């Protein structure tokens, strides 16, 4: 970029005084950490409610139950940052392992066409294909992303109900259950996978040209084009990766439960959106971080855990969950100081 040195720029006297935006800059950096105090508070509260809360086993349990949905949050976060929405992720979460089970399981609803070792590639391939269909419809045909993925949500859920006959797939091949049930270095593999993927997300979105182009596309599409970013490719790539992540999340859950229910993932998309928005990701694109989204989903699951430990009847958890999401939104609105649109 040293082309400017061809000229010898002569300073033009600037009549207005230097302005410093120190406060605003500090605030922008802090926004990423906005939920840390809330998480700390919940930990203290949880410990007071029930001493089990901060025990290693309990925390591992929270992280593991969260890890599958967290991958959906990661997927939704990158889609939101490029200024789109993908509602179909929750159906991909169920259909991708469902198709793998359909093809590999013998007996019951399964066809048993493929050997068990093909289950994982089949799951990921389905996720990839769904992402590609979304991308073609949204980017190539210019259809409204919200409606396209809403349609896909219904179609994919229907497909899973169709192939499973509304039943649950059992007797999954061992290869399919490995990732969801294995333990690496004393910690469930799904937690490792979740943490590694989030760490990768933080690095890619924060420190690579490709990652930053997501923010440019979501923040101002015309400016991104003018800067030479191939915006269509970015959008297609993001939608495909999101499908892939959703499929992987579904695979982890199926492995942990050793089954694929026809309703796997149904309704999860609301939690996913809530976690992303609480974590500071903007629904209108261009703003938010992977780290913030992670703190968002972590906070939601910690609160749920505290409620369970406090002995709140299961029937009331749903209402409380909704209330918590609303309260968390208000809190994050107050800490960020700006409208969430």
């Amino acid at each position, binding site marked *: 970029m040293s082309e400017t040195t061809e000229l010898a720029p002569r300073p033009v006297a600037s009549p207005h005084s230097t302005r410093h935006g120190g406060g605003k800059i500090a605030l922008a950096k802090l926004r990423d950490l906005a939920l840390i105090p809330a998480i700390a508070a919940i930990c203290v509260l949880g410990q007071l409610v029930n001493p089990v809360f901060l025990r290693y086993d309990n925390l591992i349990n929270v992280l593991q139950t969260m890890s599958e949905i967290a991958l959906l949050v990661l997927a939704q976060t990158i889609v939101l940052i490029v200024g789109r929405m993908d509602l179909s992720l929750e159906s991909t979460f169920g259909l991708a392992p469902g198709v793998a089970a359909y093809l590999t399981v013998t007996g019951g609803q399964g066809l048993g066409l493929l050997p068990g070792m093909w289950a994982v590639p089949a799951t990921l391939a389905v996720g990839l294909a769904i992402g590609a269909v979304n991308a073609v419809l949204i980017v190539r045909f210019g259809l409204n992303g919200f409606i396209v993925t809403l349609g896909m949500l219904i179609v994919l859920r229907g497909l899973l109900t169709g192939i499973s006959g509304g039943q649950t797939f059992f007797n999954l091949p061992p290869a399919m259950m490995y990732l969801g049930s294995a333990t690496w270095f004393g910690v469930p593999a799904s937690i490792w996978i979740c943490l590694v993927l989030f760490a990768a997300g933080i690095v890619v979105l924060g420190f690579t040209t490709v990652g930053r182009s997501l923010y440019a596309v979501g923040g101002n599409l015309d400016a991104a084009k003018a800067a*030479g970013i191939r915006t269509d490719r970015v959008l297609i790539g993001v939608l495909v990766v999101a499908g892939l992540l959703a499929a992987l999340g579904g695979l982890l859950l199926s492995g942990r439960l050793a089954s694929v229910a026809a309703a796997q993932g149904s309704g999860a998309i609301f939690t996913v959106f809530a976690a992303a928005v609480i974590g500071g990701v903007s629904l209108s694109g261009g703003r938010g971080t992977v780290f913030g989204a992670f703190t968002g989903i972590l906070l939601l699951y910690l609160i749920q855990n505290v409620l369970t430990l406090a002995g709140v009847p299961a029937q009331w958890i749903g209402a409380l969950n909704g209330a918590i999401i609303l309260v968390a939104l208000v809190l994050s609105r107050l800490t960020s100081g700006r409208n969430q649109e």
Partner: protein
Amino acid sequence: MTGRPVVEAIGVSKRFGSTVALDGAGISVRPGETHALVGRNGAGKSTLVAVLTGLLAPEAGTLLFDGEPAPRLSDRDGWRRRVACVYQRSTVIGELTVAENLFLNRYQRGPARLISWPRLRREAARLLAEWSVDVDPRLPARELSVEDRQLVEIARALSCGARFIILDEPTAQLDAAAINRLFDRMRGLREQGVTFLFISHHLQEIYEICDTVTVYRDARQVLTAPVAGLTRADLVAAMTGEARPGSAAADRAGAPAGEPVLTVTGLSCSDRYTGVDFDVGAGEIVGLAGAGGSGKTELAETLVGLRRPDTGTITVAGRPLRPGDVPAALAAGIGFVPRDRHRQGLVGGMSIADNATLTIPHRLGPAGFVSGARRDGIARTMIDDLAIKTPGPDLPVTSLSGGNQQKVVLARALANDPRLLVLITPTAGIDVRSKEFLLGRIAGVAERGTAVVIASDELDDLRGCDRVLVLFGGRIVARFSRGWTDHELVAAMEGVDLHV
């Protein structure tokens, strides 16, 4: 010493559907000059800019940079090295920092090809310092003022290697002091060999800063001449293509002020303005002059209920107005033309008829139902009344040119037969003819007994006023009756006293 043109377009044509946007048009900009491009709205300027910046492919014609053919449309880097455009609409990304905006998609990378943010910020700070742009690179770009945002865009263009910069109405949203700073900077850059193509509706600015002017009319290049030898009358004639009639607003006889319609006493609003007193009589036009930040806009917005004052009262036709309440202001008979028609004036997706009747839902049908026929009837009357150029009232308002959009906003303000009409910079960003028409129309409204308040720093807007109140730093510092000179008024707006 005139070298090869920095950019030369020959016989460029482009049509959109049945509309001819450019018809064998051309332009030739010599290195080191500041070249003005003027024309009325819809003359083809925007299309030419899109062609010159490689955003649109022309159907016919050639485009040369330094005598070489233009790069392919897909070669964005090639275009960025040759030409850059600072658009009226921002092309910075508000959520990203200034530093990142400067180096978008061409980041400084450290080990493992990861972006090195400290290095990027240092480079950005160096670049900004090099071109004397006084902005903190760590600031999110949305926090920048319009002025700083433009400077950042210019710095970015220069760092890409471009030495030819198109400024598309850069002064439209700046106040007088900022315009002067921009011009100083342009002169400085010109001495360093930067070539500008300058687009503006303000002819005065062209005489101030430009060497050569090219006039577009009806999709064609009609004139290219040195600014020095061109009279204003000739320039306007080239733009309009017909003899210019005398300005109705300027010739208006001073109407005797009737009963005060609006009385403002002791109005203050935290740090915006303090202790403002004035009144406006029936049939009187009062100007609120002042530079950006003088408080004139906020004061005008308070009159119509968009802002709530801390202290003071506003009385309309003898009755105190509920502060900070737009419906109450409408009910009291106040019509309003807001500052920015894109943001506050019009609903882009809605039709002309819907936009024009937004303030008068009760007249559209009984019990909250809207009669399409009645609405269109009212809108047609407005379209005829204000000579809005459109095939019909059901077109989306965004299909109109800027001048005609502003007429829709004025039509809506007049729909209530207001007692008091408040306008903020009513002629910003519209062409000369629409401007004269609008100002003439405003004078006509006043003649029928409506009190008018115009908040503007545009001398042409203020020329038709019976009285002009000048705000500076939130206080009324001067009051002029008819017969003020440009010098006096500008000096007062800038806070300079000519008589000391």
